[in-house]
């Protein structure tokens, strides 16, 4: 079997549907499991009380917002360099979910900051750079929407996505580089996590759930984009009856 054939929209289209279903099931299972740990197994926090339970969606959403941007830029770059249609479609499909994750991270952050810090919003480096990420996603989508020809839209938006990549390490390291109100990372590759085990487990399971969800919705969206852009292709007309 030649796996490269799936880099063609024609073969990827039916595969994406099967994969999306599987990832949706995983997302649902991990969400139920993660929320169960988050609300019924994980104990109260010693300094923040119950308000810390926002962490189970805040941190996974913030991680996904950065990760999706990196993956989106990766596909955009591949599309730009290799001139492959499906790569650009992947980038296109990821943007709305990335924007949504960024919004969720900001929203839950505000609802967490108000009771703990005493402010919904502050202009510190972490919060500001995450807000810039939201604008980058919105800018990417707006640019795409404003260009009629999809191939030109692919190229222009890819450049915007790549320019914006510098923002991702800024978000991630902002809490180390500058004095911020936002605390440092509880979980990172360079040190052991500073969280009780059940709290950490709940957060990681929720992160998996967000990951699975993002893959599932992006696959559904890429199918929609393929349908729109390949509307005139013979294979789509043939398969429409079977799908």
């Amino acid at each position: 079997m030649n796996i490269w054939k799936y880099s063609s929209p024609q073969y990827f289209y039916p595969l994406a549907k099967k994969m999306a279903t599987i990832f949706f099931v995983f997302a649902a299972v991990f969400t139920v499991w993660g929320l169960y740990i988050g609300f019924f197994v994980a104990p109260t926090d010693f300094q923040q009380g119950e308000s810390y339970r926002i962490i189970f969606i805040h941190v996974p959403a913030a991680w996904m917002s950065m990760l999706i941007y990196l993956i989106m830029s990766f596909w955009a770059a591949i599309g730009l360099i290799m001139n492959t249609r499906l790569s650009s479609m992947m980038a296109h499909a990821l943007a709305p979910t990335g924007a949504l994750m960024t919004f969720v991270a900001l929203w839950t952050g505000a609802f967490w900051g108000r009771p703990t810090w005493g402010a919904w919003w502050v202009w510190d480096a972490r919060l500001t750079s995450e807000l810039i990420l939201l604008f980058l996603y919105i800018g990417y989508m707006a640019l795409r929407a404003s260009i009629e020809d999809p191939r030109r839209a692919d190229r222009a938006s890819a450049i915007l996505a790549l320019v914006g990549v510098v923002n991702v390490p800024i978000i991630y390291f902002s809490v180390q580089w500058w004095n911020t109100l936002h605390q440092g990372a509880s979980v990172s590759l360079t040190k052991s996590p500073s969280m009780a085990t059940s709290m950490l487990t709940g957060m990681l399971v929720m992160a998996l759930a967000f990951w699975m969800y993002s893959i599932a919705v992006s696959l559904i969206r890429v199918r929609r984009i393929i349908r729109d852009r390949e509307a005139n292709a013979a294979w789509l007309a043939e398969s429409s009856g079977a799908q």
Partner: protein
Amino acid sequence: MKPRHKRLILVVVALALLGLGATFVLKAFRSNLVFFYTPTEVFAGQVPQGQAFRIGGMVLEDSLQRNEDGVTVRFAVTDTIEDVPVQFTGILPDLFQEGKGVVAQGRINMEGMFVADQVLAKHDENYMPPEAAEALERAMKIKMETE
């Protein structure tokens, strides 16, 4: 050279330049990106003169006093080297506590008192149940006593 190789090189070079540019910009703006100044910086005169700024550090242990009006508080912000006395009228955030992180916005008056119009609590990245926190504190105390 194939067109796709050319494009690859272009993208890589553009990204490298962009990264370099961003680094310079960040270095230049480094001082403007600080959300707060430490008490040491305040004493060294590295804070903006004649305008509001933020100071950050720990609330000094046993420094919190409430005025008779019940809403005005005084405390000291420390970075373990220098202390800045702070006065604030208003509601303190839930996580405001002696020995914990704090960020206050305001300006220094004639008497050298930092008059804050906003006080924010800065918490750390540790999460654990209260029992674990107590156990940790007990262990620290024992360690301190034996040293």
